């Protein structure tokens, strides 16, 4: 047998195999040994986390809104479940908790896989605590942890602003430092300020052996509690706003149908909800913010029945409609055209360049667009308002006068005026973009223009008519209808800028944050822009808004009839947004007439401090249903608690 080269090759192969082993040994034992020394050390030490209490949430005066109470929770500590002790643990835990063994096994497996704790019994009774302590050797890996549990002191008071908490979802888990066992803010301030509210978990280090049995406690870092957040919300105003909205909504439903109604698809005319907020016009602080029906955020801590959940969800109560609800601002939007008219000198065709000159409003506007198409527009008040000027037009909310302004802009487009002049003014006041409030999920609304319209025709052809952008679109914008959409917060903020001298503030709900060590971190007001309005315009607007309430033919006069003292300090504007329209071809035929009721109030009008916005979704007339709610809130703001009356109904007005 010729062993020659074949044996040589074999010896070489063997040598290579041994060489590979020696090389790998050299790598891990000499080159990288420190890594493994550390890993061996870490094998001997296991850390478990102690949850930090979330920071408190307080109102501007320090009243407690969200706090924590202590609960003793049994957790499976994945790092401490012994290898091989799992079956026994599952059996004992199933018997202890009364939950099926398969469920417990899943929890134990997951806790071990993650090396993290998982709650198994959420509130232990004293007897259970004693039992677990006495039988701890039968529950190796189970710890009793003092866990802070969120408590919302006055549940529904400012649920929209405060928000609620919950377990992280898939998106949250991708954020750095978020573990499945964490509790996170899911909405409102709880979410927006989660980083400062959450605090930092503590850590306990144990020395263990290979079976995972604890030999000794090595270290303990205490958790650092989250910071306390002070809101700009004033609980007293918030309480009044809540009760006013509730009363107003009930009243609107009662007026819609005797005995009330239940909103839904079967009854599309039934008022759905009432939304309101009070904004500090001088710095953008939100004094109160609410939408009714609301919810109690404690249900996210304590749980809620499936039926109750379905009911709440169907009413979309978890949304903050003051910043997420989009409504046609309707006639409350006329102040934008009002300011534009004064600033740019735009007045109806047959009126010379002066806002005081009369214009005959007979309730019908007949004209031809540039393309020659004949048009007929009707004012909301059949028969019209007679001879009026710009100021009367605002007091009485005359559509025709403002349509004439739109027509003038449309006719003069490209020469006298820029085509989107009115939209530009709307945007100056913060419409068409988010206000930047420190709350999540804010929506930006919409001020349509030709560019938007052309894009929408391409992107959503089914929703947009196929004829081009026309003068009629501008006429819709000027009265806040058509595709114009705004949040109640945008409306409030725009009015604040109009009446405060022309400063558009970035609204905010947090006044300052106080860390656990006592450091105060102020949330300074931010001015977005100075609009640069003429002082005369501001003074005229204040006067005319005051007349809407105090003037002989003001649209909100009736609603404020019972106001009492200081009514002369109140200004405002009504609005009635068409949700479901009349038949376009035959204006006499009313298919279904469902409107959103709106009101914007300002007080004190000579030196504006508060802007109050009220929207009743499908509430009907703004003057009739929204204004009385605002009146009640303004009564409180101006006259204190003793001046507050019940919410009634005002007169039917746009």
């Amino acid at each position: 047998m010729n062993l020659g080269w074949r044996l040589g090759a074999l010896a070489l192969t063997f040598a290579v195999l041994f060489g590979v082993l020696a090389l790998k040994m050299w790598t891990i034992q000499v080159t990288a040994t420190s890594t493994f020394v550390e890993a061996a050390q870490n094998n001997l030490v296991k850390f478990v986390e102690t949850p930090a209490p979330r920071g408190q949430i307080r109102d501007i005066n320090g009243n407690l809104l969200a706090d924590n109470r202590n609960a003793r929770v049994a957790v499976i500590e994945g790092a401490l479940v012994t290898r091989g002790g799992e079956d026994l643990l599952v059996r004992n835990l199933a018997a202890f908790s009364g939950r099926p063994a398969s469920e417990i096994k899943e929890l134990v497996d997951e806790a071990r896989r993650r090396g993290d704790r998982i709650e198994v019994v959420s509130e232990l009774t004293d007897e259970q605590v004693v039992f677990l302590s006495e039988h701890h050797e039968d529950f190796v890996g189970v710890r009793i942890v003092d866990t802070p549990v969120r408590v919302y002191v006055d549940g529904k008071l400012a649920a929209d602003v405060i928000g609620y908490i919950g377990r992280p979802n898939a998106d949250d888990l991708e954020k750095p430092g978020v573990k499945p066992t964490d509790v996170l803010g899911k909405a409102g301030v709880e979410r927006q300020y989660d980083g400062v509210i959450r605090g930092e978990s503590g850590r306990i280090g144990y020395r263990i052996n290979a079976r995972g049995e604890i030999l000794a406690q090595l270290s303990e870092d205490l958790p650092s509690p989250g910071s306390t957040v002070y809101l700009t919300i004033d609980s007293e105003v918030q309480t009044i706003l809540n009760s006013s909205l509730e009363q107003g909504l009930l009243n609107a439903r009662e007026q819609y149908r005797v005995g009330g109604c239940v909103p839904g698809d079967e009854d599309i005319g039934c008022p759905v909800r009432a939304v309101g907020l009070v904004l500090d016009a001088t710095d953008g602080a939100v004094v109160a913010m609410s939408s009714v029906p609301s919810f109690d955020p404690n249900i996210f801590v304590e749980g809620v029945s499936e039926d109750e959940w379905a009911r709440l969800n169907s009413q979309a109560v978890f949304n903050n409609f003051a910043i997420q609800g989009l409504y046609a601002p309707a006639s409350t939007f006329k102040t934008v055209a009002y300011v534009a008219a004064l600033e740019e000198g735009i007045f109806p065709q047959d009126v010379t360049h002066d806002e005081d000159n009369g214009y005959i409003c007979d309730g019908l506007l007949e004209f031809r667009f540039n393309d020659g198409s004949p048009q007929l527009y009707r004012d909301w008040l059949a028969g019209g308002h007679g001879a009026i000027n710009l100021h009367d037009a605002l007091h009485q909310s005359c559509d025709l006068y403002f349509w004439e302004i739109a027509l003038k802009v449309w006719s003069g487009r490209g020469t006298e005026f820029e085509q989107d002049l009115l939209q530009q003014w709307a945007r100056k006041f913060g419409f068409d973009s988010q206000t930047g409030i420190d709350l999540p999920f804010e929506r930006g609304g919409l001020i349509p223009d030709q560019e938007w319209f052309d894009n929408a025709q391409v992107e959503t052809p089914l929703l947009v008519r196929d004829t081009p952008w026309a003068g009629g679109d501008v006429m819709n914008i000027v009265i806040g209808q058509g595709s114009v959409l705004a949040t109640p917060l945008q409306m409030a903020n725009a009015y604040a800028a109009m009446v405060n001298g022309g400063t558009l503030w970035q609204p905010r709900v947090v006044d300052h944050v106080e860390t656990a060590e006592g450091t105060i971190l102020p949330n300074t007001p931010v001015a977005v822009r100075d609009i640069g309005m003429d002082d005369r315009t501001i003074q005229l607007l204040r006067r005319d808004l005051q007349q809407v309430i105090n003037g002989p033919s003001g649209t909100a006069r009736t609603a404020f009839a019972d106001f009492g003292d200081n009514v002369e300090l109140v200004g405002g504007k009504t609005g009635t947004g068409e949700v479901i329209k009349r038949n376009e071809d035959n204006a006499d035929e009313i298919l279904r007439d469902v409107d959103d009721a709106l009101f914007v109030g300002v007080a004190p009008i000579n030196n504006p401090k508060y802007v109050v916005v009220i929207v009743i979704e499908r509430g009907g007339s703004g003057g009739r249903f929204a204004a009385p709610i605002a009146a009640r809130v303004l009564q409180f703001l101006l006259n204190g608690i003793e001046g507050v009356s019940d919410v009634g109904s005002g007169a039917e007005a746009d």
Partner: protein
Amino acid sequence: MALTARRTEPVTILQRERALRPDMFLILPYLALAALGIVMVYTASAPRNELLGLDPASTVRRHIVFVLIGFAVFIASSLIGGRTLRSLSIPFYMGSLLALGIVLRWGRELKGAQRWIQIGPLQLQPSEFAKVAVILALAVLLANAGNTLRWFHIGRAVLLVGAPAILIFLQPDLGTMLVFAFASVVMMFVAGTTLRQLAFIGLAAVVMAVALFQVGAIEEYQIARVTSFLDGAGDEEDADYNQRQSEIAIGSGGFFGKGLFGGTQTNLSFVPEQSSDFIFTAVGEQLGFVGGSIVLGLYVMIVWRLLVAAINGRERFSQLVAIGIASLLVFHVFVNVGMTLRLLPVTGLPLPFLSAGGTFFIAMSLALGLAHSVWMRRSPVPDE
């Protein structure tokens, strides 16, 4: 090296007259490894036994018994002459096949595989002896074939190795199957197989495996066992955990090691199976790179002596036996140490002469003794 030329010289009488002198270069490393094994088995098992409330020395005491039996088997097999061995090879092979059949039908199941036969207090693993039996039988076949291997011989070799391989595959014991494959390919390669023939053998192995599944010769539960082994299934996580702990243990041992009983990984039982399959972990952690290198060096020495024995083997059969046993040893060391270093997957092959595990120590001593016998009955070299 032209061995054939040597054999033409009429030296047969002289060889017979030469006394049988042991090869100390082979025996000393063997004894050293066995001794080190006893120490390592003790350090790896005593703390755990203590924890379980057992006598700390119970594992090592049992191991020592097998080591002593192993020494006896080594001496006995060293004394078996080539011709006797050759005549015993085929019966040994047949006996192994029978034992493998028995183990499959009546064997004890442990950790999802049937590998053990219980005889009284004794647990025997026929597959360990089958390793030696296959090497012997293949050596007979290849020696009979002469210098040029025909396709006919290759076919017979495949059948010869294939039969026990299938039985072991059904246990299932993938590691042992790979041992068969490695040793027989090495032997055929040295015996002069052409590359084309080697390729054919590889193809045959694949076809056979597929055919077994297709024909349905394998019961469903057996397929399930094999696939669960291949996929790792539920055991994968544990296997990975074990290997990571093993790597940490060896890596943290550093250059000089942590000293006997100084290894936290070993003492606190982070490494599983540490007195049997993962015994090298105890070496690496406690004795460091130095100790591990010495162990590898001892194996290199033994393998070197086996290759020298093969070169000097008096006849083709003896030479092939020495080669087969050398490859058996190398494969076990490489796969086992590679596993503890997290270089190779977990296959369940123990480490020769070090791992606790009775049958294996005895079988490896038998194999080493047979190879030792080849050296003792080597052809005379000119200066002797």
